[in-house]
């Protein structure tokens, strides 16, 4: 999607990186603003400020912390992930995206002070020299949707490939992989795709690349030596389970198992506060047709026996292709991890933060 306008915060006017980003995106308008509130005020005049915000970038310096442990959700098991967020917001418009209810700013916020992010990272690594971490930029943003114009993915890859105790993940629903041309593959960098069967993606993942294109990109990068991940998340009950099984088969047909770092499974869940947003912004969505009930964290979910059964079927199929595939669950209880995955959550979490060659249990042949 085209970026129509860039809002430039006063604190970033003289920033060199901000100037380069503006040049590369060449938007119709650049507006200097005091802060993010001014961008909201501007975008509120449109009937759907969120949609307009997805075509807008707010460039500013971020004074806060870039790195944070993924909060997961209360009462469910965390996978031990860390979020690093130089970008917050996304041009893709998935109906189920919780950012619509979570973020308070309409435009995509791009923080130009990457130097601060790196120095924060250095301090963090100094404090934890022996620990292993898995972190990525794909929780509050799509890691590749604004690339290569943004230029952050390449910078981050070059930085993290040198960090021996980190597995760095770029998570996306886009298909543009031009930025990887000329970059040397690294085992510590995982490029992962969130996937859903085409029928569900067409309905619920507006402006995302077609699923086949995502898989083609994944295959191309795997063939170039990169490590790939897949997230079946959120799994939706809009399509029969056979569609998910066919998608698993297709993934393993296209991407060699030895290149797949992990596969996550997570079924749809969202806070009830997202319901009105979903109704207003995505009237054609079929998400709310599902049988959704509040879980222990208050988020709406499909019934657990139904989730359990579907996970079981999907895990069986993945393991049929590769019995050493590292599978984990997203925002599910620990007892369900143990029951369905057969290994201790602690072991799974430990190996998730290791490059494939260093793993003991989950190293596909």
């Amino acid at each position, binding site marked *: 999607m085209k970026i129509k306008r860039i809002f430039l915060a006063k604190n970033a006017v003289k920033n060199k990186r901000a100037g380069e980003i503006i040049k590369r995106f060449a938007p119709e308008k650049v507006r200097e603003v005091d802060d993010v509130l001014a961008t909201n005020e501007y975008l*509120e*005049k*449109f*009937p*759907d*400020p969120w949609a307009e915000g997805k075509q807008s970038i707010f460039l500013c310096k971020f004074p806060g912390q870039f790195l944070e442990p993924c909060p997961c959700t209360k009462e469910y098991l965390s996978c031990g992930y860390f979020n690093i967020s130089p970008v917050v917001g996304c041009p893709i418009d998935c109906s189920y995206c919780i950012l619509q209810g979570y973020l308070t700013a309409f435009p995509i916020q791009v923080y130009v002070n990457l130097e601060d992010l790196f120095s924060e990272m250095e301090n963090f690594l100094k404090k934890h020299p022996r620990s292993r971490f898995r972190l990525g930029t794909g929780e509050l943003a799509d890691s590749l949707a604004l690339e290569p114009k943004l230029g952050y993915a390449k910078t981050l890859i070059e930085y993290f490939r040198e960090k021996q105790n980190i597995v760095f993940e770029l998570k996306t629903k886009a298909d543009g992989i031009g930025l990887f041309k000329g970059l040397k593959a690294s085992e510590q960098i995982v490029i992962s795709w969130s996937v859903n069967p085409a029928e569900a993606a067409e309905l619920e993942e507006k402006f995302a690349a077609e699923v086949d294109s995502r898989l083609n990109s994944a295959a191309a990068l795997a063939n170039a030596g990169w490590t790939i991940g897949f997230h079946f998340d959120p799994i939706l009950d809009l399509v029969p389970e056979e569609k998910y099984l066919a998608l698993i088969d297709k993934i393993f047909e296209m991407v060699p198992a030895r290149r797949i770092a992990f596969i996550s499974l997570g079924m749809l869940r969202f806070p009830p506060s997202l319901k*009105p947003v979903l*109704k*207003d912004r995505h*009237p054609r969505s*079929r998400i*709310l*047709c*599902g*049988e959704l*009930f*509040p*879980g*222990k964290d208050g988020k709406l*979910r499909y*019934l*657990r*026996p*139904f989730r*359990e*059964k579907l996970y079981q079927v999907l895990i069986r199929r993945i393991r049929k292709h590769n019995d050493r595939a590292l599978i984990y669950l997203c925002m599910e*209880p620990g*007892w369900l991890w143990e029951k369905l995955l057969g290994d201790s959550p602690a072991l799974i979490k430990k190996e998730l933060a290791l490059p494939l060659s260093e793993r003991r249990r989950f190293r596909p042949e």
Partner: protein
Amino acid sequence: MKNNPALEKIALAHLSGPETYRLSFNRAIGPLLKSIREVGQTSPMLCRKTGKGLELFSGYLRKEALKELGKKSALALVWPGSALSAVTAFRVAFFENALTRGLNTIEQAMAAQKLKRLGVNSKEAAVSYFQKAGLPASVAAIEALSELNDLEAGWKIFLAQKQVGLRYASQLCRCSASDRKALEFLLSLGATTSQFREILEMTDAMSKRDQTGIEEILSGPELVAVLRNKKLSAPEKLDLLVKSLKKMRHPNFHKLYSRHQELVREMKIPGEVKLEPSDYFEGPEYKMEITLGKSLPAREIFEKILAASRGKDWEKLFEFDDED
């Protein structure tokens, strides 16, 4: 000071009241009649002088009440011709009504539409009018409100009377005319606001899920039988309809819950014990509530629970095999 309004006694016969400004919908005139009868007119109507004579812009209900009481004249605050444009007159009327008696959803819809006709865009309507009056105030809300004016009269009255908010009013508006027609039983049965919301929400979700119309969903034999049952009162019918629709809306939950009830029966768990799945079967856990009283044999109840827990069905409570 020549632009200030003056309090005047005016002849009702000479007063025109164009619909441009009217902001009352489905307001009961009775209390106002009673009040005027007792103490007379206590607040003046608002008028402006135009080339065509005196024009009323706020106080339509007062005018109707005074006429009904046979009054020939009334007190009015009258603005001189050049002092008040049509937009400003509407602005005065809007705030006089919105901030004193409040506007129901349909009156808000009328206001949104009238502002549009007066050339006020949605953003300005949102910021300069609705927001200041504490009403739904996004551009999208103003546009959704405007659409409510096209609803059928019966629905407008219902939405106003039941104080249905914009979200659900708008959802109803998005339904096809035939679906709204099918939902009209809610009007005749006198559904409460929550019953209206619940039924609309369930039927709307099912129509999307099953890719069919609400009309078709409501023509199911179980629902039709309830609606046609002459022995049931309106509240009973509504109650049964909600229950049946819940089963249709959440078939998997219904199946799980029926299985659970069946297991509880088979395990011969005594009636004094309530065994319920916690958080909609979210965990492999159940909540047990036991009612004990002086005359109830506590030992017997506990023994029955213990016996049940040793039986083969107890395990089934926590496992769902393929047949389930």
